[in-house]
């Protein structure tokens, strides 16, 4: 956002409350010598045109490939998929020959689906309730785009938008480890299980990068996800933008119905023609401005906007490399993802506990070892491990306490130890983040990593609220540009880019 506005010659200042930029995509040295990708940890969705427009590689962005996914199984077996396509197929075939046969067809279908939806990612959502001809043209154009798809793709897309990821995958596959691991992409950041309708779309959302992301696959940014934020910040500064950290905003100053500036927590006031909030919709509409200045419909919709956080994070500093029971020793598998997702039922049961307000005792965990990919992340011979965990409900029964946080951390370590026997002996330090911690540290309401669930009722012209999906707000000069706007979360950059386009149109 800032980079695009500055590039267009505008005078821009970015105000960040914390001591570093990046929001959820930061790298921090919480334990001396060990750099944690504290929140988000992998990248794939970042829009290629943003990388190009902002010349991010010149500003230090390097993406290292994350090629493999290892799913260890409780019986000591595993499912291993990596960059070697035929080797992966052979491993899938060990579990089910039918699945190996369907794997490529599935990949092709998802490729087409992602290509079809890509169109929507780069458009500002039209408003179907207005009579504005521009909106109607845009809607008609969209209808034409989809109706021109081959019939089979059109219907598959409709299924994808409405099915559960478990049912969707059932149409292709039968083996537990493959379905379990694939269905996991459908639940990330949601408070839903793989059998909940609507999760198939999230599956696609995460697939998008593999098709169209700058890196064609999941990758790891050199220096952690903070590396991405830093590169964008350098780019913005190169265009003349100013970035201030430790500068929390208390309120947006509104005169009449016009935003004229912001009041900082330290009492300073800054004035500008345009104020843009990258915070989530709840903070943008209910905290930074006085809700009384907004139409009551909008306030009601934002209150109803679903931001239930469901994921936690465990970051570990390790004395040496973990040793997996199913694949002992050091190997290329440690440079990829390790996914604790042995079956759909496993993840569904993890959800069952969470939906009644408990954290999963046997959660879904997605781990990577950043220091194996990028040795700068830890001292020589030592390692960091980044574990994304679901489910940890924000509204835990009885609320989150220090004891509950440690119990949650223990559950994660216990689960991992079943597959990594030496884990408990090599942990030098652990950082456990609950959704409440995520909210308290980086401000995401209820710790929702997408600034609002990616469900059908919260996408496109309904994100974040009907009538206000075009990055504008009812207050003149006040704009929104966070993941809570179309097209949603993940390190994608699209909301900021689209919002910048809209703002520049208005200037």
């Amino acid at each position, binding site marked *: 956002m800032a980079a695009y506005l500055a590039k267009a010659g505008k005078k821009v200042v970015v105000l960040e409350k914390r001591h570093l930029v990046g929001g959820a995509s930061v790298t921090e040295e919480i334990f001396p010598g060990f750099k944690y990708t504290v929140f988000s940890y992998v990248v794939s969705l970042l829009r290629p045109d943003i990388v190009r427009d902002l010349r991010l590689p010149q500003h230090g962005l390097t993406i290292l490939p994350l090629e493999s996914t290892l799913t260890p199984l409780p019986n000591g077996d595993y499912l291993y998929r990596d960059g070697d396509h035929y080797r992966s197929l052979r491993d899938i075939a060990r579990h089910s020959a039918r699945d190996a046969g369907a794997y490529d067809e599935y990949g092709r279908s998802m490729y087409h689906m992602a290509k079809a939806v890509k169109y929507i990612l780069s458009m500002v959502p039209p408003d179907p309730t207005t009579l504005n001809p521009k909106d109607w043209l845009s809607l008609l154009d969209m209808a034409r785009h989809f109706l021109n798809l081959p019939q089979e793709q059109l219907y598959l897309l409709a299924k994808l938008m409405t099915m559960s990821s478990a049912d969707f995958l059932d149409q292709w596959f039968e083996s537990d480890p493959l379905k379990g691991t694939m269905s996991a992409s459908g639940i990330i950041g949601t408070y*839903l299980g793989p*059998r909940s309708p609507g999760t198939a779309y999230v599956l696609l959302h995460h697939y998008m990068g593999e098709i169209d992301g700058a890196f064609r696959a999941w990758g790891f940014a050199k220096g952690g996800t903070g590396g991405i934020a830093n590169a964008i910040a350098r780019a913005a500064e190169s265009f003349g933008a100013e970035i201030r950290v430790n500068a929390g905003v208390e309120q947006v100053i509104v005169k009449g119905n016009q935003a004229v500036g912001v009041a900082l927590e330290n009492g300073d006031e800054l004035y500008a023609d345009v104020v843009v909030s990258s915070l989530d919709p709840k903070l943008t509409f209910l905290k930074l401005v006085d809700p009384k200045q907004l139409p009551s419909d909008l306030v009601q919709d934002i209150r109803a906007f679903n931001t239930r956080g469901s994921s936690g994070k465990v970051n570990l500093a390790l004395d040496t490399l973990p040793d997996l029971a199913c694949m002992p020793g050091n190997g290329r598998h440690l440079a990829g993802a390790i996914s604790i997702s042995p079956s759909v039922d496993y993840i569904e049961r993890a959800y069952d506990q969470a939906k009644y307000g408990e954290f999963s005792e046997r959660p879904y965990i997605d781990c990577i070892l950043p220091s194996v990919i990028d040795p700068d992340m830890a001292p020589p011979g030592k390692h960091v491990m980044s574990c994304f965990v679901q489910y940890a409900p924000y509204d835990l029964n009885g609320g989150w306490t220090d004891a509950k946080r440690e119990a949650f951390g223990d559950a994660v370590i216990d689960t991992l130890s079943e597959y990594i026997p030496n884990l408990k002996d090599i942990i030098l330090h652990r950082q456990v983040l609950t959704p409440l911690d995520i909210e308290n540290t980086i401000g995401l309401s209820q710790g929702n990593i997408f600034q609002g669930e990616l469900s059908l009722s919260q996408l496109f012209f309904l994100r974040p609220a009907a009538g206000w999906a075009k990055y504008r707000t009812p207050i003149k000069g006040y704009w929104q540009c966070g993941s809570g706007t179309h097209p949603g979360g993940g390190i994608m950059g699209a909301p900021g880019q689209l919002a910048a386009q809209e703002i520049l149109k208005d200037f």
Partner: protein
Amino acid sequence: MSDYDAIIIGGGHNGLVTAVTLAKAGHSVLVLEQRDVLGGAAATEEVFPGGKVNTGAVDASLFHDEIVRDLFLKMAGLEFIENPAALFAPQPDGRALTLWTDEQKTVADIARFSPRDAQKYPAFVQQVNGMTAVLRSMMLTPPPDLAALGVNDLAAWGKVGLQTKRMGSKEMMDFMRVLPMPVSEYLDEWFESDAVQGAIGAAGVTGSHLGARGGGSTLMMLYQYSGGFPRARFVRGGMGQLAAALATMARQKGAEIRTGTAVSRIQLNDDGQAVGVLLADGTEIRARVIISNADPRRTFFQLVGPQNLEPRFMRQVRNIIYRGSTARLNLLLNGLPQFNGQTSQEQFTGLIRIAPGLAYVEKAYDAGKYGRVSPNPILTANIPTLLDPTLAPAGQHLMHITMQYAPYTLHESNWQDKRNWLGDHIITTLSHYAPNLQSLISNLQILTPLDLEQQVGLTEGSIMHGQMGLDQLLVMRPVPGWSQYRTPIDNLYLCGAGTHPGGGVTGTPGYNAAREVLRALR
């Protein structure tokens, strides 16, 4: 050449609606029903001596009044009973909530559970009825053929679009926002009381193998209220009298109806067109069009045969999610049960629902999800003899109890072994709310999902002819690309609940299918 213009396979209520509509237009029609009784999953049978039991559907509030009028069903003897109480919901704490058709009475009753909910209830009723009005016109509009959008499709859906637009911008956006939502989230926006949420929201999982937190359950709930909310309407003489009225009218218009006549195959000619049917007794009957009221999987796998269809189409049919999860217990009682918290018998003249909260519904689903019967199931019951005493011998009462979830595919067990256990389980559950129930039972009938498949012919016991999830509605029903009642076989049509808009005693699939067939017969 042809013996009839149209043969309809299956005398369920949709098949009969199609029959009357075609006969009324002057076509010669033959309806073939394999059972001895008409009505399919909306039949009334004398299961107990003198006891006329609805073995399938009980509530006729969804049946479209346009169809009643257009087919002159009142003249053929159809009579509805509108119940003063729509829903009676006993709670575990001994209280009971009643949703009356009289709004003031309902508001007063809800206030005992939550004054805030009581205050919001009238606005909720207004929103629901606004949305269901649009749904009702959608139900009578065949989904467009997206591959070849025609003028007819555009005009018909343009009308629905205009109706939606007339709701107002805010209401229209709400409509779009709300449909795909889980019913638990939607009702959270309105109500705080578990009793209110459960009583109203449990309708969102009717006949499906999904939970209250499943996306699309709000749409399903609205569908169940598409006859108006709150409402419960029965057919005098039992649900079977609807089929009887349709049959009377069909015969009056010259149609022929044969019961006890099973079709074993749909006959195709060398060009692959449907030309007739082969009966189980070996007789062949020919017709210009064949219309199947059986569900899609049965129609294509058993009656047509996979060898006559493209593998890609058959794969789609195989992928239809059925997953029946509904079982039925019918009771003949020596008196009226006494419910905890009841103040009058009038309270339970409509439906009686055990679903004290949406967490209760979700937990019931949790078990079903892994192939187990819910330890605390959702029960929807009614006692039709309260307002229609002729249904049972003097002094006795009938009680129909539908339970969920009873998954068709049981984990580590089977329905032959579990049938009697299931009956006890339902009675025990209901006895918590009506302690004298056990002592009143003089006879009973248990129908497991397997029984529904074997006796009524519902694939996997799915009472909706295929789950009504978002992914199996509109242009996706029964399979993508074939939502306009036609099939890949020339002259073969579908008219059952497996087609748009879906299950429930609405009459609309049969009515829409007939209008499509009329175009072909012209």
